[in-house]
């Protein structure tokens, strides 16, 4: 709560309700704040295609990581397809350093449900699945409860509010795989199969869940919809840094800052502002050494990039990505090799094993990194590392391959000397100790 109090300059949108004292996220509470107004105004009154147009006009882009324009994504569904379509809400928030969806789900579930029903209406889906991360037990319970309430109130289910629109929502809990946050793996998992990413093309828009046209949207993306409808796309498009990155965004600040937490700010403020003003600056007022701008998959940035604007294009130009909005800050004195290893361990554990470069590469990388950190590195290791990273990136089925090499690639680029220091130390030790280690692990 304290984090939200310290956000004086911007008006929160998604976090607005929950920042009201006494707001419980229940249906009456939500209705009191004007909830489900968008639903009443849209369903049966505005044509679905116009809703899509509205969203395109707002410039809303996916908040899950890739930042694809939401309305455009909806437009990819085949127009004349006879048969069911599906909407999947991706609540499998497992990116290290990201915890925004959890808060949205637990504190204001109806905001998401309203967004889901609106999206269902726009794309013509009658069923929506919320694929929620298995560890979010509380979130799943709250969603189930909220769906029950909304169904009883007629906001979800058959013939919503007597408009003849059907949209039912189910919650599906994952079983603890990071890869199931990837949209096609999510669909596989939802179908009851092993959660492995599918080969694209065909894309989910044409061959998605059960081989039917499907849209997969992030929780935050869907939560934005009622607000866009209520206040108009123009209002939304004016926030942030138009024309490409519009609206507000919840950034999850973690790491060595004074006040870690979720901060909803318009896109386009600088990292400096986020870290030093909203998050209260560095812990113990130490110097900042590095930060990850968008979840573990995004390459590290250096203090030189503190004045980069937090929108999709500027961060991409700086050599990283805005990703899922998880900003992890590291202070001076952090071992960047160790930090990269920590992330690599995560990716090694989560590599699904479908394609060879990622499967074998992650175990290879993590073992080499462990060796370097344990001061058993060799001079040629760095070259091997960067070579392996290059060989993994872009050669896998899904984007996981690109994600898993980013910590090593970026730390190698910016902090190569730290690697070299560890390796030199290892070699010096080796020279002093002529007998080589009998066993390596």
């Amino acid at each position, binding site marked *: 709560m304290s984090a939200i109090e310290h956000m004086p300059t911007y008006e929160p949108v998604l976090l607005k309700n929950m920042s009201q004292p006494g707001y419980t996220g229940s249906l009456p509470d939500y209705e009191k704040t004007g909830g489900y107004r968008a639903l009443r105004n849209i369903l049966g009154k505005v044509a679905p295609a116009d809703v899509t147009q509205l969203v395109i006009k707002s410039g809303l882009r996916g908040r899950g990581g890739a930042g694809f324009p939401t309305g455009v994504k909806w437009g990819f569904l085949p127009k004349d397809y006879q048969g069911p379509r599906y909407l999947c809400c991706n609540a499998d928030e497992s990116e290290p350093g990201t915890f925004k969806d959890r808060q949205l789900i637990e504190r204001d579930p109806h905001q998401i449900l309203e967004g889901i029903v609106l999206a269902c209406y726009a794309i013509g889906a009658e069923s929506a699945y919320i694929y929620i991360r298995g560890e979010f037990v509380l979130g799943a319970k709250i969603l189930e409860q909220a769906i029950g309430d909304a169904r009883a109130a007629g906001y979800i289910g058959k013939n919503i509010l007597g408009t003849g629109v059907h949209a039912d929502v189910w919650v599906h809990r994952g079983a603890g*795989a990071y890869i199931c946050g990837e949209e096609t793996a999510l669909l596989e998992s939802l179908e009851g199969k*092993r959660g492995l990413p599918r*080969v694209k093309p065909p894309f989910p828009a044409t061959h998605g869940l059960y081989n039917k046209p499907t849209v997969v949207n992030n929780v935050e993306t869907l939560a934005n919809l009622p607000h866009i409808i209520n206040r108009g796309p123009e209002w939304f498009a004016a926030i942030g840094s138009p024309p490409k990155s519009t609206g507000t965004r919840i950034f999850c600040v973690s790491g060595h800052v004074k006040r870690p937490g979720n901060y909803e700010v318009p896109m386009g403020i600088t990292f400096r502002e986020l870290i030093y003003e909203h998050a209260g600056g560095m812990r113990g007022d130490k110097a900042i050494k590095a930060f990850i701008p968008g979840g573990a998959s995004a390459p590290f940035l250096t203090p030189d990039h503190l004045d980069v604007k937090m929108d999709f294009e500027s961060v991409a130009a700086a050599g990283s990505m805005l990703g899922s909005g998880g900003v992890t800050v590291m202070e001076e004195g952090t071992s960047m090799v160790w930090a990269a290893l920590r992330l690599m361990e995560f990716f*090694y*554990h*989560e*590599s*699904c*094993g*479908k*394609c*060879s*470069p990622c*499967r*074998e*590469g*992650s*175990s*290879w990388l993590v*073992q*080499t990194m462990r*060796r370097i950190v344990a001061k058993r590195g*060799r001079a*040629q290791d760095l070259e*091997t590392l960067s*070579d392996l990273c290059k*060989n*993994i990136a*872009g*050669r*896998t*089925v899904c984007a996981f391959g690109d994600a898993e090499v980013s910590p090593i690639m970026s730390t190698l680029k910016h902090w190569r000397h730290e690697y070299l220091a560890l390796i030199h130390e290892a070699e010096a030790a080796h020279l002093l100790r002529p007998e080589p280690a009998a066993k*390596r*692990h």
Partner: protein
Amino acid sequence: MPESKTDSVRLTIDGIPVTVPKGTLVIEAARRVGVMIPHFCYHPKLKPDANCRMCLVEVEKMPKLQTSCSTVATEGMAVRTATTVVNDAHKSVLEFILANHPLDCPVCDQGGRCDLQDFSHQYTATASRFVETKRIFQKEYFSPLIETQMNRCVQCLRCVRYCDEVMDVKALAPAGRGTMTEIKTFGTHELDCEFCGGCVQICPVGAITSRLSMYEYRPWMLKRADTVCQFCGDGCQITVQTKDNELIEVNSEYGAGRNSGDLCARGFFGFRATGHPDRLTKPLIRRNGALVETTWEEALEYTAQQIARIKNAHGAQAFGGLISGRCTNEELYLFQKFMRLAIGTNNLDSSARYGHMNGVQAMRRVQGTHRWTLSFEEIVQADVLLLVGTNVTETNPITGLKVKEAVKKRQARLFTIESIRPAIGTISNITNLVDQHVCALPTQFGGAVLALLKAVVESRLVDQRLQHESPDYVGAVTQALERLSWPELEAATGAARDTFVQMATGLAQGRRVVVLAGQELLRSAGGYGSCLLLLDLLLLTGKLTEPGCGFAPLAEENNDQGAVESGAVAELLPGGLDLANPEARARIARAWKADLPLAAGATLVEMIDRARSGLVKGMLIVGENPVGSLPTVVGAKEALQRLEFLVCQELFLTETASLAHVVLPAASSLEKAGTFTNQEGHVQAVRPAVDPIGESRPDWEILSALSVLLGTPLEYGDAKELLKEIRGVIPGYGLLGPAPIPPKVDRAAVERYLAGDYRRALAARYTLAGPADAAGGTTHLGLFQSLFHSGKLSTRSKGLLQIEAQAALRINPADAARLALADGDRVRLSNRRGEVTTTVKVLERVPEGSAWFPDHFGQDTAKLFECAIDPDTNVPAFRTASVSIAKIS
């Protein structure tokens, strides 16, 4: 080949232009121009999964490298497979794959024919940069016949996908995540599947190997022979690999033969039956009541002497002959020629009489052909399939695969009339894929077809042209069907009228309708009538003469069809010519330059009856085992014991051969050359893989030698000379080609049938069969064919016995619960005719009130069955009985 502009695309691979049909994958297009793109996970039979990332290529105007196994060729695409970038990509992927590979090629059975080995030689340096710890999987017991070595696995998941997509068994699954992914069975039990060996064959490395020949060979030691499987009528091409005249393994190449690389457990693991130590290696002769080893000279001379003696004393009609449908066409042909010329009798029959003749005679009568008017390709392309009494996944597994392909890949509608319940089990069950299913007893298959016919007539689905052209026929059939009432039919078949109406509508709407009739129909009482009913069904719906439609009876023995076509049945001459037809007789006599015996011949059961009554004094039995196959009630043993002289040509000392006066050791199909005709009428070459064991000789050589000694020399240099003669007698016979050209329906025959031939026994076949057997039992006992056995030969195969070693009575869980039975309990089966004890296995697919017994082991159960002889085709039907089951504690 589609070559028009709309359905073909042009692209260039490394600058070589190539035109391929739309939808072709780049990797396939490259293969066409001789560019081999390395790959592991891609297989033409499977949907692309693109997980190995080995087949990366550069495609112009695409930023990233693309996997050629999942990229569809488009017009004007320029693909480059040999640039530095691509080469580096291949190298790097291979480096990753090899990182955790144990490099144990010297002890790996795949070493020498391994994709990974080949690509490593092509791409990687000899030393790896991988200096870390390799991942190790502990060895776990997998199954008695299939062995896994997961450290070698490249996780291409071909095995898993094959098991699911092609076999529909889903026995394998990947377990674990990331580098710890390994192939396992579902659950914690050991592998329990169809044992088709597909995973062994499709594994690009040595991760899944066959335990049957583990470590016995290195690939370069093997000598291969492409031949044809000896088990069922599907006629799969197998490649038999031998080392030093010893059978090592069997496999089948993608694209080869009618099976295109797919095999079943019998084909893949059943090959060692012929090398069993019980094989006869020397001629045996009966001296002082016991069979003793002797020389060929003595055995043959004694045989010829005895035959001549019987012929002189009692005339040629006192001699009879039986041959197995597992002999080659050449042998079947020579056998009937021997019987007809050297001995001078038409008393000859083959194992086609056990059921296949029902289908053949029905086809001859209605459509004027003695073989299918279809090929396997038409089964795959069918849009409506009707299966009657097939249990196709067990009896004819490869035909089953064609049906699965039609249903799963081409969305064909499948209707089945089977005595199987749809239930998921360890063996794939065709009724799991159906649109409409009628679960009837084998005795009521005819009733189900009648109900279907009634639905066709009542729903006004009769072909308009037929109604117009042959009103009499349609009228007669309609009238006959009117006598049957729906309640009666529903009670008999256990299915509702609505089901039949839906099936009838589906059949009438289908453009390519294929009807498959299996053994359970062909070998049941009234099988001939039911086949005619099915043909009536096709006629009435106007499908019989349509292209892509037809009736296909499935053969149990691999050369039943060849036996019919070679004339190794009493009533037919080579080429399916009628013995009673003087014109046909004259044609054969001209070809043979000798006169044929005139008297109609005795068929299988008639011969046995005549032997009992003393009319037949001597018999020549080639590879057939009537004592073991026919029920006790026929009395084959007593009849054969009364013979003055019985000579058998056999692989093993069977129940029949042990009654013989002379037993001549014959060579198995793996040891001789010739041809087999599969059920679709495709003649395929049989090539010797090993030398005949011991002193055994091919059957045709034995017959030829006997004919010389009898003074009617039928001499041939080799099997090819015989085939040449057959081709002289049957023009165009046995053109060895990639695919058979099925005959067309003979319109004259159809017209003759419609003009009045249909009236013969019309009322009889349009009558609902009564309760089958009144032998005083409550449970319907049926003999069924197990997937793991075929005939009696497979029970000598080490591999198959490891899967299924003994007979067990299959019963439904509900029945088992009623009788308080569990797997392995012993029960007593009894009826008026006798009683038998056996063990029980609970199987969900068995219908309630039925029990199945595999017909490969149980000689004991033979006494429970009665035998009904079909009046038209003389087929003995003895596969059903009613029994009571009681638990023995």
